[in-house]
């Protein structure tokens, strides 16, 4: 009996729980050269904004212990070019398409989302209220329950299909933000985006990023991400997509056990672009060995000490 890897979030069924993380797979074209995207549960695009953005000057990435910092600065082609140049490619892919949306104002989020509402092939929106690399708002939305609710509610009005709220880890209590997003009409949470970090070159005394700071990602943050998924799963009521430092199927199982229904793979794609394929294979093998018939048999099943 081959294990069943399908999961359902907000009525959308995914072939497996493994997605690519926003900003780590561009619009999918490059990864499609490495493996057929049908191997993915879903592809999540780079954050799309109203206008095209070049992002911050290089250096805008830096390596750290078991991770990296980035301050790409939401570089993207903008909604017009996205619809014109990228959607035709995405429409042909045999996987679910999640478009990540970002903005400097609530209006921008709503406008971009409204444009995407017309494109049936966009299965889900992921609202990035948590990018630490833009000055004009990004982080602040995700750090304020009121703004979070308002932003999600705005998008909710114009987008008829499911909405994922991507939460910031840089907060005192992530469940407050999660509840606000729920209140605003979100259907699921993505937990977590990157953590604010920095690094300095001790030869030049310059920050290693022209933005002076960036987002920390990779295996280094996995324990933090797991604790946040655990907390949201315990206290909040929507399905969770776990993100942070996942590079093997073993990492995925940890996320499932603490309550994630699906996961996203980010930085690991830079080291092993075919990581999602290996992860799906690994999950299958693990489930066979453990005699688990369905992914659901693991979700939230961590045996906590009492």
């Amino acid at each position, binding site marked *: 009996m081959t294990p069943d890897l399908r999961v359902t979030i907000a009525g959308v069924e995914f072939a497996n729980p493994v997605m690519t993380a926003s*900003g*780590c*797979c*561009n619009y999918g074209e*490059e*990864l499609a*050269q*490495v493996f057929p995207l049908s191997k993915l549960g879903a592809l999540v695009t*780079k954050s799309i904004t109203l206008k*095209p953005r*070049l*992002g911050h000057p*290089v*250096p*805008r*990435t*830096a*390596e*750290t*212990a*078991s*991770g*990296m910092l*980035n301050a*790409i600065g939401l*570089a993207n082609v903008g909604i017009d070019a996205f619809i014109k140049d990228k959607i035709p490619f995405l429409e042909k892919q045999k996987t679910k398409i999640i478009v990540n949306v970002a903005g400097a104002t609530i209006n921008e989020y709503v406008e971009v989302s409204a444009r995407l509402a017309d494109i049936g092939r966009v299965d889900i929106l992921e609202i990035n209220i948590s990018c630490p690399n833009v000055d004009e708002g990004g982080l602040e939305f995700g750090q304020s329950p009121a703004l979070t609710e308002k932003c999600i509610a705005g998008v909710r009005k114009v987008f008829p299909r499911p909405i994922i709220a991507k939460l910031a880890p840089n907060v005192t209590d992530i469940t407050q933000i999660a509840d606000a997003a729920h209140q605003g009409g979100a259907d699921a949470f993505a937990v977590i985006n990157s953590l604010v970090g920095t690094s300095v070159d001790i030869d030049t005394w310059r920050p290693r990023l022209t933005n002076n700071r960036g987002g920390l990602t*990779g*295996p280094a943050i996995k324990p933090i991400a797991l604790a946040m998924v655990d907390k949201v799963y315990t206290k909040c009521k929507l399905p969770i997509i776990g993100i942070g430092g996942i590079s093997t199927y073993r990492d995925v199982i940890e996320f499932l056990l603490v309550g994630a229904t699906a996961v996203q793979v980010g*930085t690991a*794609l*830079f*080291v*092993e*672009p*075919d990581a999602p394929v290996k992860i799906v294979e690994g999950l299958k093998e693990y489930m066979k060995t453990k005699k688990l018939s369905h992914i659901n048999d693991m979700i939230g099943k961590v045996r906590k000490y009492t």
Partner: protein
Amino acid sequence: MTKPSCEDTTLVRARDLHHGYFSFTFAPYPRVAECHPGSFVHVQLTSTDIYLRRAMSVASVNTRRHELEIIFKVFGRGTAALSRFTTGSKVNILGPLGVGFSKPRSTYHPVLVAGGVGFPPLMFLAQQMIDDGMDPKNIHFFYGGRSERDLVERARIKKMGIRFYPATDDGSLGDKGLVTKSVEKFIKDHHAKERLRLYGCGPEPMLKAVDELGMQYGVAGQISLESPMPCGIGICLGCVVKLRVGGHARVCCEGPVFEIGEVVL
């Protein structure tokens, strides 16, 4: 675009070229035939405590023996860890990556300008031009470094039978001063008589000078750039450069080789 793939290969030959330089040969690497001068590979270091891969230009290939050579200089943690690999080590290589040099027609006189550890792809380029039938005597290889010890693999380069022009900052070998000074003199002397093509790979200030020489004297050509490269395959947008026209380009995908005059340096 060639489809990149991750391949497990073995370090079969490690040569210490001294002064911090190493030549590593990996085999069998199934995709040698798809490696072109200017192509690079992304070498995994996670067996050490280093998370991201490191980009290394292809220095040579042996298609019959499925061997791939890279040459690197120990610079920071990444290359230091790499240098500690011993023969027989398994190494995962992501490649072949990038858009390489376009070879000139045989009527041209290519002028190759290498700075320090920028020489490997140009050595590969020279070799392929010869293999393609170009007269070695028409290939001009300028090679600059701080001092004699920085100009490694000289014997190998000279053996190709090409014209070799070393230059060192301290005058310990060849012309004294920046290699681009020697190149400028050469261009001045030759560009009226011969159809030159410039090819540069090396530190950014050198590339900037080559770029300016090309534009100043109207000599077309290409330069190979470096940039921090988390992914090497175009998905992180970390490696961009600004183009004079048309916004950003990714060094790993649209490059690393760009036309002279194309990039804002």
